[in-house]
């Protein structure tokens, strides 16, 4: 059984495409990159100047005892050093600047893309995993751009130069020393494949661990209450251990690879020494050339083992970019329409036409639902838990798209409606209240629309939240902890309610908006709503029938089907499901002393 946190196994290597796509991110900064490469070359050239100046100093001045000349050349040396210093700094800065820019671009791109993804994506992907994409994975790419790519250019440049010089010096000897290259080639390929696999494994482990941590930190008190610390620790340990194993494996490959390259290099040198030595003995080759050859081939293998060091970065980057691109390539299942309809003024008519819907193929949740709500009407939805009430609302705001049928607002299918306008006109109090960590005021007004402090305060007054807000040390500027955990659950719900009202919606949707609020406050809110809701459409979901009695119409949902609708009185007359629900709530009260409702039995015994 693969767990929810398991990363999907990724497809076969397509390095080239990845690399090309990655390089694309360099493109906007190509000038800076080129400049930086140029500086790098300058620095390398200046580095070579040192030995040359030394040689000149010795040959021309020290040997001849020319102190004046020596002074001059020492000064020149200093000058070269200073230039080198400046160029090196400029190069590093430019490259890092580019790296940071790219990182910024990528992060913003990923984040923006996440905002476009539909809600269903987040049902399947743990928060921790998405966070890993945005933070760690991008960071790895930054390293590629700042320390990897550029110096690879440098390395390749050096390699090519050395090959040419060696061929030019003595092509036979050069070929002899290159004879080990196939071995090197094979070794690198094996290494590449192995390291790639193990890096993928490492990245998977990191994401898994982060997802696990994320979940366990948020649910820590549940773990503590149920005394499951040991078990959860063990599960964490398992993930941690796997991460360790994955890393140890890649360490092994690296530990083998470096010495292997060195050994191959030594082999080449030994070949040169032996073959070249024989030629020297035969008088075909000068000793000087042999020494030069040896030095060049030493320099030849140095960049190669450097390259393999870079490989480390490259591999990590590839593994990360694969996952990032996979996220970026995820098409949002719900996308804004190509030619969005923007209604001039949205009246607030809602219509469901033969809507059927399933979250997962084979388990239908809503079946052939049709109803309509006139502008300004207040409609209640009741039904047993799990009957699909919240799902209806999810469809109304287009969190998901229907499989068949149509949801319409003001006679326009929601799929054609401008998504922004749709969501701007609807305010929802979701069943699962979510507060952001920020101030109370921010939580009510949010960040998008210019909502005045006064509106915020009014909205809280309507829902009777201002009473408790005022008692907080900094009132509306008090910061709430993550998810509002420093407030009582009822208080959180009131804030979510205030948020909905402050956004002045055309359509107000309340999904169990007062389920955790005490009766007195609930009543007060209802009275306030009575006035506030003039001219607005409202859809109210509630289990307490008392909460919905002011509604114009009641829809009864049963196992995903709309089985009854009508006014409270109509439905009582019908003696169907609603009637039973009502009786039940009511019989409860009959069983207790009827101190305040002596005539209740009479009025209910004869419904309608």
């Amino acid at each position, binding site marked *: 059984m693969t767990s929810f946190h398991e990363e999907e196994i990724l497809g076969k290597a397509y390095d080239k495409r990845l690399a090309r796509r990655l390089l694309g991110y360099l493109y906007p900064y190509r000038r800076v990159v080129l400049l930086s490469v140029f500086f790098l070359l300058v620095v390398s050239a200046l580095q070579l100047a040192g030995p040359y100046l030394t040689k000149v100093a010795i040959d021309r001045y020290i040997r001849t005892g020319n102190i004046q000349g020596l*002074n001059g050349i020492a000064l020149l040396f200093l000058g070269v050093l200073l230039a080198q210093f400046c160029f090196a700094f400029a190069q590093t800065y430019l490259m890092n600047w580019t790296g940071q820019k790219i990182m910024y671009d990528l992060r913003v791109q990923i984040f923006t893309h996440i905002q476009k993804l539909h809600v269903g994506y987040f049902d399947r992907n743990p928060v921790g995993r998405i966070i890993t994409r945005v933070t760690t994975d991008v960071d790895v790419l930054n390293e590629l751009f700042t320390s990897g790519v550029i110096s690879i250019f440098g390395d390749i440049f050096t390699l090519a130069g050395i090959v040419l010089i060696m061929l030019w010096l003595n092509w036979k000897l050069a070929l002899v020393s290159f004879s080990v290259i196939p071995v090197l080639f094979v070794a690198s390929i094996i290494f590449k494949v192995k390291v790639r696999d193990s890096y993928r494994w490492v990245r998977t482990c990191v994401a898994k661990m982060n997802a696990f941590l994320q979940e366990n930190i948020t649910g820590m008190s549940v773990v503590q*209450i149920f005394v499951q610390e040991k078990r959860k620790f063990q599960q964490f340990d398992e993930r941690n251990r796997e991460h360790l194993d994955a890393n140890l494996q890649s360490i092994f490959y690296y530990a083998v690879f470096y010495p292997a390259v060195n050994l191959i290099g030594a082999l080449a040198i030994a070949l040169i020494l032996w073959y070249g030595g024989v030629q020297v003995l035969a008088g075909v080759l000068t000793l000087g050339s042999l020494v030069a050859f040896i030095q060049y081939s030493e320099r030849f293998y140095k960049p190669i083992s450097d390259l393999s060091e870079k490989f480390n970065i490259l591999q990590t980057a590839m593994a990360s970019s694969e996952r990032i691109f996979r996220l970026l390539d995820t098409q949002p299942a719900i996308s804004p329409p190509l030619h969005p309809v923007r209604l001039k003024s949205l009246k607030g008519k809602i219509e469901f036409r033969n809507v059927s819907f399933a979250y997962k193929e084979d388990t239908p949740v809503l079946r052939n639902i049709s109803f309509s709500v006139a502008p300004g009407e207040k409609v209640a939805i009741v039904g047993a838990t799990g009957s699909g009430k919240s799902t209806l609302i999810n469809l109304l705001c287009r969190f998901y798209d229907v499989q068949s049928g149509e949801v319409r607002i003001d006679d326009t299918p929601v799929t054609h409606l401008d998504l922004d306008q749709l969501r701007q006109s609807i305010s929802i109090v979701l069943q699962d209240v979510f507060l952001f960590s920020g101030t109370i005021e921010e939580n009510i007004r949010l960040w998008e629309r210019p909502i005045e402090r006064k509106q915020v305060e009014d909205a809280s007054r309507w829902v009777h939240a201002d009473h408790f807000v005022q008692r907080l040390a900094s009132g509306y500027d008090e910061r709430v902890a993550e998810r509002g955990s420093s407030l009582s659950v009822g208080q959180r719900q009131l804030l979510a309610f205030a948020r909905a009202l402050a956004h002045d919606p055309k359509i107000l949707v309340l999904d169990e908006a007062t389920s955790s609020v005490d009766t*007195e406050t609930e009543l007060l809110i209802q009275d306030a709503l009575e006035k506030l809701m003039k001219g607005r459409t409202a859809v109210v979901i509630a289990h307490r029938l008392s909460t919905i009695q002011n509604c114009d119409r009641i829809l009864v949902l049963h196992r995903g089907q709309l089985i009854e609708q009508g006014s409270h009185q109509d439905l009582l007359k019908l003696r169907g499901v609603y009637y039973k629900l009502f009786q039940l709530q009511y019989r409860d009260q009959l069983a207790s002393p009827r101190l305040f409702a002596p005539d209740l039995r009479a009025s209910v015994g004869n419904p309608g």
Partner: protein
Amino acid sequence: MFIKSWLINSRTRHLLTLVPFLKKYRTQITIGIFMVLATNIAAMVAPWVLKRAVDHLYHEISRELLLYYSALVVCASAVEGFFRFQMRRILIGVSRYLEYDLRNHLFAHLQRLTPRFYQQYSTGDILSRASNDLSAVRMVLGPGIMYSVNTVFTTIFTITLLLSISWKLTFLTLLPLFAVTYCVKYFGRSIHQRFESIQRQLGSITTLTQENVSGIRVVKAYNQENAFIERFKQANQDFMHRSLSLVRIWGLFYPLLTLLLGVSAASLLWYGGRQVVQGSITLGDLVAFMSYLAMLTWPTIALGWVINIFERGSASMGRINELLDHQPEVLEGGSKETLARLKGDINIRNLSFSYNGFPVLRNVDLQARAGETIAIVGSTGSGKTTLVNLLCRLYPVERGTIFIDGIDINDIPLSILRKNIGYVPQDTFLFSETVAENIAFGKPESSRLDVENAAHISNIWPEIQHFPRKFETFVGERGITLSGGQKQRIAISRALLVDSPILILDDALSSVDTYTEEQILRKLSGELKNRTALLISHRVSTVKMADQIIVLQEGRVVERGTHDELLSAGGFYADLYQKQLLREELGVE
């Protein structure tokens, strides 16, 4: 030496936390350090052999000898390779083991911290410390140690060689390098500070992402996408500026070291050249000296590296220590001789509690005999949840205020206390596991039959039968793929399954329809007979059958008694009853 003073300065002090962890791997680290030494020595052999061979070639040399030298080069390299392999495998390996230990240690520590801590630090921030900062610390343990040892060896070795030629020249050439001390001090501090501020900002980015993704439904419902993108851009811009300010320092550091080294070489050329001209040293000496000096290049660069790694690592370690330094507020406590199973007599005496100076409970008294059902009602924010949280010791409880079976709960070991309480928290949290695993959360070893029984009581069983994979259905993060009422009922089953003498239901039926509520209450009443139950609800219908009803108002118990008693007393409860009743009545007109 400066390295020493640098090591024990206040910034790197954070790294001392690692010492106990390092001790465990003493042997490996010692061996690893020897491997570094061996690698360094072996690395000298091949060049030496080559030099010999070339010297021989000047004169006459036999082909056999040439072959012998060639073979020697390969052998030396093989030996070096072996040591290098061991060095990397051992030292980097140890760093991974240490990372593993440290991460486990951190997690175990997090498990002991109370909700107060989690309200102070956001999840994203903690995550960032546990991943990004931990890897910076890992760098210290692996490459950091490896390169510093390497640097020390090469430096000592090279300086010895230099001294063997001329101590005057040595002194002269090393003079500019003393400036390195100053650089290291200055740069070290800057790197540390700037890196810390970068990590802090990375934490903010993580937090922002975490908030955005967890609240994605609200974000979408209220069209907040663009606002979040703006905030995210801003946070990242800030991050970029902080990073670049580090680059300005760090980018200067390397070239500066190279420059200093170059100045050494230049002054050697200048001064040494004069000496050659004056005849105090030979040209050969000067050339040898120069080539030895070149050997210092690598350690100098490595020094830059090492300091960078150490400074970053210690900044990060400081951030991790900040978490580790939070002492758990609620300690295990208690003597082990307490009975494993409590009876369930609850006695709360004059309990007061405040969050950060904000009083929430005032002089609460409550008595519940084993088996009784106590209901708690009260308006929003009156302190009901706080009261039951204290009973589970989620927050520290003052001595002499809460007793179970006559024992102060501070004297009951925490795990035993909590094992004796089944708790349905007000905001449901489920794990992204299967339905069965969630129900069996408190007792993972329970049989399927027990799980199904618990599911029956909360009336979720029939619905589970409709799920695609029944009890093996995954519920998604926080139970996202379930309806509100389904989540709540799974949480009820989860609490029932632990079969504890005390059961707390905090508004546990708020998202359940009346019909289901009625059925659950009926089934529960059987379960509640032999348990002490604390029932929090806003509904009279849920609480009226309780043996005792407590009314909390602003943290005070304002009424207590049975349903009937309270009704005739005509206070808050009677008012509540009337309100709930009157509305039903209105509906029937």
